[in-house]
């Protein structure tokens, strides 16, 4: 067994330094398309799928809907800017009064997370898996994955919430002790994505349980999920939409 210890030591530290320093390695995030207004370039965006009734309503098609099809950026339009980065998590509209958005200081370095797969395609789950693996290692932040919602402070929901998962999702939410925070990760969990709302799917998590933090992306890269968790405990400010350093780089 000592060979494994030796192997582990020899490998050295592989973890990202985020959030102490921004992660600059290539390929940690696919980036995000964005126009100057912060909305998706609708004329190339296949989303919502199919015809849009009436005139396109640009305000409704925002970054939360992006499914990373790259059609906008790989077409020949100059209006599309490609935004690098991964700090995409935002707090859900704060109009629900009396509900603490953040867990508070006592949870900021000790957080237990339960992931619920409410019909995700596997990519989101794979990215969530990565946050507990050496390259991102959320344990260094004091975050832990727990197998039961009984011990969880954060419910990390991925997937559009299929009809068959509505009951388990609600049950898991009710089984959590208070205070609790729900993080919806991925386009499906935010809006239903490609699959919802439909006859077998809901239109995102917020239709079923109150959502506190949202992180878009299809799938959101591990660092975006970590950013969402940091937002949930108040260690990072949420994504504002105005501030992103829009890189001038036109994609590939």
């Amino acid at each position: 067994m000592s060979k494994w210890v030796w192997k582990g030591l020899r490998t050295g530290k592989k973890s990202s330094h985020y959030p102490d320093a921004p992660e600059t390695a290539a390929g940690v995030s696919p980036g995000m398309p964005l126009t100057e207004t912060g909305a998706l370039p609708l004329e190339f965006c296949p989303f919502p799928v199919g015809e849009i009734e009436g005139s396109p309503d640009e305000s409704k098609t925002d970054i939360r809907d992006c499914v990373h099809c790259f059609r906008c950026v790989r077409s020949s339009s100059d209006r599309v800017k490609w935004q690098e980065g991964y700090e995409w998590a935002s707090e859900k509209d704060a109009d629900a009064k009396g509900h603490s958005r953040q867990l508070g200081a006592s949870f900021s370095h000790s957080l237990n997370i339960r992931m619920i797969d409410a019909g995700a395609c596997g990519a989101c789950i794979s990215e969530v898996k990565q946050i507990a693996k050496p390259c991102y290692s959320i344990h260094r932040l004091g975050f832990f994955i727990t197998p039961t919602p009984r011990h969880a402070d954060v419910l990390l929901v991925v997937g559009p919430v299929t009809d068959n998962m509505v009951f388990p999702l609600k049950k898991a939410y009710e089984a959590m002790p208070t205070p609790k925070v729900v993080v919806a990760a991925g386009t499906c969990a935010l809006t239903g994505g490609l699959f919802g709302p439909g006859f077998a799917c809901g239109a995102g998590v917020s239709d079923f349980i109150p959502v506190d933090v949202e992180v878009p992306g299809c799938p959101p890269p591990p660092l975006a999920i970590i950013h969402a968790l940091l937002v949930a405990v108040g260690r990072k400010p949420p994504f504002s939409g105005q501030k992103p350093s829009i890189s001038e780089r036109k994609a590939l």
Partner: protein
Amino acid sequence: MRSQIERIAPGSETFICNGLPVTFVDCAPDELQNVCERLTAELGYRFATLVVEEAHCDWQLGYIFCGGHDLQGGLVRVSLKASGARPIIPSISAIVHAADWHEREAEDLFGLVFEGHPKLGDFVLHEHTPEGINPMRSDFDPAAELPSEDICPWRPGRIVQTPGAFAMPIGPVYSDFAESAHFLLETVGEDVIRVIPRFFYKYRGLEKLAEGRRVEDVLLLAERFSGTSAFAHSLAFCQAVESICEAKLPARAPALRTFFAELERFRYHVGVIADICGSTALAVATSQAAILEEELLRLCCKYAGHRYLFGLNIPGGLSLNVEDEACRVLTGEVGSIAKRLVDLMEMLRFSSSFLDRLEQVGAIAKKDATDYGLVGPIARASGVVRDLRIALPYAAYGKDSLSFSAPGEEEGDGYARLRVFFNEAMQSVEIMRQIAESLPPGEVRVPRFDIKGGVSLGWAEAPCGAAFHWIRVRNDGRVARYRVTPPSFTNWHGFHLAAENFAFQDFPIIMATFGLSNAECDR
């Protein structure tokens, strides 16, 4: 082969399509079982998928078989016509067991009655959907209110009748990162006697959603219903569409597609190896494999724009022309990762505590693997060496310049599966190297791709096995019917074979050695 099929089913017609023989057999209901049995038993055909089409109580069922003993059999479609609101179809599951779940699915979604099938009922649609509501039928009303009260919880008939037997429920929300699925383990303690799996917790209605959508929108669905094997599925879908539209792709496109399909396979298999290590609680090895997986994800993102290769495949080619130089650099980097994977496997091979948990655990006999029609690495670990890349070559796989073979093992246990995953991963790196060396120059997409109406079957060897995408496109460019048979659906069907008669603590390990995706299975 053609004459043999003629002997079994007189009046069959054979065409050569893209160099492959495709046989169409029209079959009467009372002949169906006989034809299917002789196709599989005598000619060695393997059941691929069941396609059900309905238009106002006119039913058309297509039983698609592929393979054959000498791998030159191509495809056979046995067609059956029926009419009526709920026609009674003879079940072939008792003869061709691989069709079991297909029939259950069709019963649940279409309301067909498969006569002679013992286990129809709750399958895709769970207890909150009353019997008689069949969403894939044309008369289905999605706006209809479902009863929300008085839902009778699912309770399968207990099979183990031994005194003191009980059922141990696992899931649907369980383990740290497990995908939602439920397993009811029947046991009398210690050993699992019977596994009753329950899937489709993640049923998103992929096939129903596709109906009436534009082909390019359905592509998004095909790509995203299973994110971890997105490229393979979008490839199969695109090939089906291209075959309908008779598109002539520039030579660079199939080569690059093969290149990325193998990159995805490599990444997927490294992830499975990480999960197997994790299931045996070998922390360092898990971390090592996870580091490799993340590095591969980053490479995908760096060179193809997306960590899971989304948005790369489009009908008519690829949306991105990756330069020759980039491919060579990428191959080099993947090669160095492969070297580290070899080191890891060397260490695993000499970790007795690790091997003890895998060897002779979760074994599937070759006969069972054949009967259940298992595919991919799991079938190959049990000695059923069948690979669509060889049996029904697509993309650049049929090229003479590409030399590779499907690695197989005989034991069928967890360790054999691990070795297959590893050997296939290494094979993938080798294929990538060969392609990177001889990439044809030019464009990667047809300049103009026109959608036509028609029917076609596309397939690809996804990381966990054979994936079939059957599609019917209307003349206006919209999809009339889309049928996906992913490998996870096929293989989960046989999962219980491996998990039965092993101890509880082996269950997660056996599950990890299968390396399947529930999202892919549930659609």
